[in-house]
Each structure stands twice: as structure tokens, then as C-alpha cells.
């Protein structure tokens, strides 16, 4: 039975990001007072790109390799997160997070292989952001799981612990949001100054693959955030899987709405602000935990 659910989950994981993106575009359009493209537009875009000619770059084979490694590790990671949600075993989320680290690394490296100044500049920006966000995200997710389990196990309500959970939840959301590469943090693509930056040289199938990888990345990160929120709260296996998916959609929508109201940040501003926020919130959370444990 588990196998059926997992296969189903994986198929959803493979297909749904494309439609989620469609929903996001529709929503953005609504907030900009217009109709917007149909929900299936992203699918059309990708299908069209697959039919187009690829303008070769001499590093194409390496890029394809990295993208393949990204896709395989991402799918494995999605699987791990689903198993975690289904079973509640924290071993699987640990595996999922380490796979996430691998997949993010491959995706970050790919644009650096393109011999173009825009792509290079964009790639470097991506690296800077990834360095900060990835670690913050992984740390906050792990901490969140242990803290929330701790909170659920304590009989009496401990205010320092609650505060600690709240701060770490915020960190998790912020770093997750930043990792999805939405509005203030889409500086790697930064169309006006970098001519689509990391995407500049990709064309045809390669572009389709890269864009799809980005959507998959968004999905995985949203799924992890949704998963770690649901899993400790809802123990029933299939139901918790379904809830996770619903929550993923909701989170995706919330992220989309936030991204509409903000502008693009700058590469020297974004990491600074992010680092400050993370250090503040994580240390607050640790303090809360310490106060709870020894206070």
C-alpha cells in the first residue's frame, strides 16, 4: 500500500510544479488587475521549448549531467520527505535534507559552467544566496522538528519553548522563501541588469530542463516546509500525506502573494539582511531552548 501512495506522490511531485506555477502566474495577474495566462501556460511553454532548436554551448554535456544529478536527487528527496510524512521517522527527513543539499549544489553549479559574463555574474549571486539560505534552511528545519516534538511532549506549556518554536518557524519560512528564488531574492536572474542572468545562454530543451528544475526545486522546498509542519501534528499516514499536499499548495500561494508586493533586492543587500535575520532568530531560538531546559 505504501508503495502505491509513494508512486502516486512521486507522480504528483513530478507533474504538479508545472501547474502550481500556472496558478502562481494567474494569481499574480489577478493582483495586477489583469486576466493572466491560462493555468496550463507553463506546460505549454515547456512543451514549446522542447520542440525548439538548441543553440549549443561547449559545456552542454556537463550542464546536462548536473541537471540530471539535480533531478534524480530531488526526486529521491521528495520520496524521502513523503516517507517521513507517512511514517513519521525522522531518519527519512534527515536523508531528504542531505539529498536537498546535493540537489541545490548541482543546480547552483550549472550556470557557472556557461561561458558568458551575465551567466557568471548571475551564478555567483546564486552561490552567495545559496550559501546563506541553504544552511539556514537545513538548520532551521532540523531544529524545528526537534523543538516541536519537544513541545508536543511537554505537559505544561513552556513559554520560552513556544517562543523558541515561533522564531525557528519564522527562520524556516524566510529561508525557504528565499531558497525558492522569488521576488526580493530573484537577483540571479535579474532581467534588467543581467539579461536573465543564469538563464542567458540556455535555449530550447536545455532551457526547458533548467526551468523545470527550478520549479522542482520550489516544489521540494515548499513540500519540506509543509511536511515538517504536518508530520508531527497529524499521525494518520495517508491523511497526513494529503494534508501535506494541500498545505504545499497553500504555502505556494502565500509565497506568490508575498512576492507580488515586493521588489528585487540587491546582491550586497540581500545576504546581509538575510544573515542578520537568521543569526538573530536562530540565536533567539537557542536561547529560548536553553531557558526552557535549564531555567
Amino acid at each position: 500500500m505504501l508503495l502505491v501512495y509513494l508512486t502516486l506522490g512521486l507522480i504528483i511531485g513530478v507533474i504538479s510544479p508545472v501547474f502550481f506555477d500556472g496558478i502562481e502566474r494567474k494569481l499574480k495577474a489577478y493582483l495586477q488587475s489583469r486576466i493572466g495566462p491560462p493555468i496550463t501556460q507553463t506546460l505549454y511553454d515547456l512543451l514549446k521549448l522542447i520542440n525548439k532548436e538548441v543553440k549549443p554551448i561547449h559545456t552542454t554535456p556537463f550542464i546536462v549531467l548536473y541537471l540530471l544529478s539535480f533531478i534524480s536527487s530531488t526526486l529521491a528527496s521528495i520520496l524521502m520527505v513523503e516517507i517521513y510524512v507517512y511514517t513519521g521517522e525522522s531518519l527519512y527527513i534527515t536523508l531528504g535534507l542531505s539529498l536537498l543539499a546535493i540537489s541545490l549544489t548541482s543546480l547552483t553549479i550549472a550556470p557557472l559552467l556557461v561561458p558568458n559574463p551575465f551567466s557568471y555574474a548571475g551564478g555567483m549571486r546564486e552561490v552567495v544566496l545559496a550559501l546563506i539560505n541553504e544552511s539556514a534552511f537545513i538548520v532551521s528545519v532540523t531544529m524545528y522538528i526537534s523543538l516541536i516534538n519537544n513541545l508536543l511532549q511537554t505537559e505544561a506549556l513552556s513559554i520560552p519553548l513556544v517562543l523558541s518554536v515561533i522564531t525557528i518557524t519564522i527562520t524556516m519560512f524566510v529561508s525557504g522563501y528565499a531558497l525558492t528564488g522569488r521576488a526580493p531574492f530573484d537577483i540571479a536572474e535579474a532581467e534588467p541588469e543581467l539579461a536573465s542572468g543564469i538563464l542567458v545562454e540556455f535555449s530550447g530543451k536545455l532551457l526547458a530542463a533548467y526551468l523545470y528544475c527550478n520549479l522542482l526545486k520550489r516544489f521540494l522546498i515548499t513540500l519540506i516546509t509543509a511536511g515538517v509542519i504536518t508530520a508531527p501534528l497529524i499521525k494518520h499516514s495517508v491523511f497526513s500525506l494529503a494534508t501535506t499536499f494541500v498545505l504545499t499548495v497553500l504555502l505556494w500561494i502565500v509565497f506568490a502573494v508575498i512576492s507580488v508586493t515586493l521588489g528585487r533586492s540587491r546582491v550586497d543587500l540581500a545576504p546581509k539582511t538575510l544573515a542578520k535575520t537568521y543569526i538573530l532568530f536562530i540565536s533567539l531560538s537557542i536561547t529560548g531552548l536553553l531557558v526552557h531546559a535549564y531555567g
Partner: protein
Amino acid sequence: MNFIRKAVKPAELLIIAGKTKRVTVKYPFEKPILSPEFRGSIEINHEKCIGCGACVNACPPNALEFVESSDKRTLRYNIGRCIFCWRCIDVCPVNAITGTRNFELATNDPLDLYSYIVHSKTKCTSCSKTGETVKMRKYIMQRSPVTENYINNCPDCRREKFINALSVRKVGFVAK
């Protein structure tokens, strides 16, 4: 308090978006927003046009041009070059040109952009040179007291006849 208000100010955009709702006009499924004054492509009435060339002279981008051949004068209108200023409408002496509000002019065939009005040219009765268009001559004859004989000649022949007539009157013969 002020700080918080400033921090959430960007979110007020959502309120504006909610207030304005969708403003998109679903053209081409709906009618476009077009003001009554809009200047679109022009239409030349081939029955009224006399081929005088006033519009050709006035047209800033040479979208209206004469294509000449030995016995035809063709007024060619190139929509692809037209700047929709309607100066031709201002200057047309016979009101043959009318403005429309049509802007749906896209095409994938460059030949679609041209339209033609073919005029026959008049022949000089003396020397068989061709001159202005037939309709232009009719227009002039209706409006000015010149004899048909006079106008049926080309300007060169006219001048020659005039000089000849003058010399006949003054000296009694035509100098060769």
C-alpha cells in the same frame, strides 16, 4: 506603531488590486477601447479620386506615391509606410479620401500592404506625349473657362502653339 504601518504599507497594494479588480478588455473577443477621434487607416474612393497628386505632395512619409507608366498613372497607398496623420484628407480637393478607425492591419504577406488606384493619362492631341490624368482634365474643364482644344495639348505643345500664334500675329510667319 508608525514603524509597523510603514512596514505593512506594501501589502496595501493588495487592497488596491482588490478594489480595481480586472480591467483587461478581452480584445479580440470584445470590442477594443477606441476613442471616437482615433485616426486609423485611410480609404480612397476610386470614383471620386482625380489623380491630382495633392495627397502625394503632402504625405510626409511618401506612403502615397505615383507609379508612372507610359499611359497609366497609378496612385499607390502603402499602409506599411503610412503614419496615419490624415494630412491627405486635409488637402484632397475632391474629398475622395476618408479616414476610418480601422487598425487591424496586420498581415503575413507584404503584398497585402499595397493598394492601387489606376488612372489613365491624357494624350496630347498634337504630339502624343502623355500628361495629367483624364479625370484631372475633366475636373479642370468643369471649373475653369479653358477651351477643350487648349487643354488637350501638353504644356510643351501649348507653349509652342502660343509662341507660334504670337509670331504669326507679330511678324506674319513662324520662324523655323
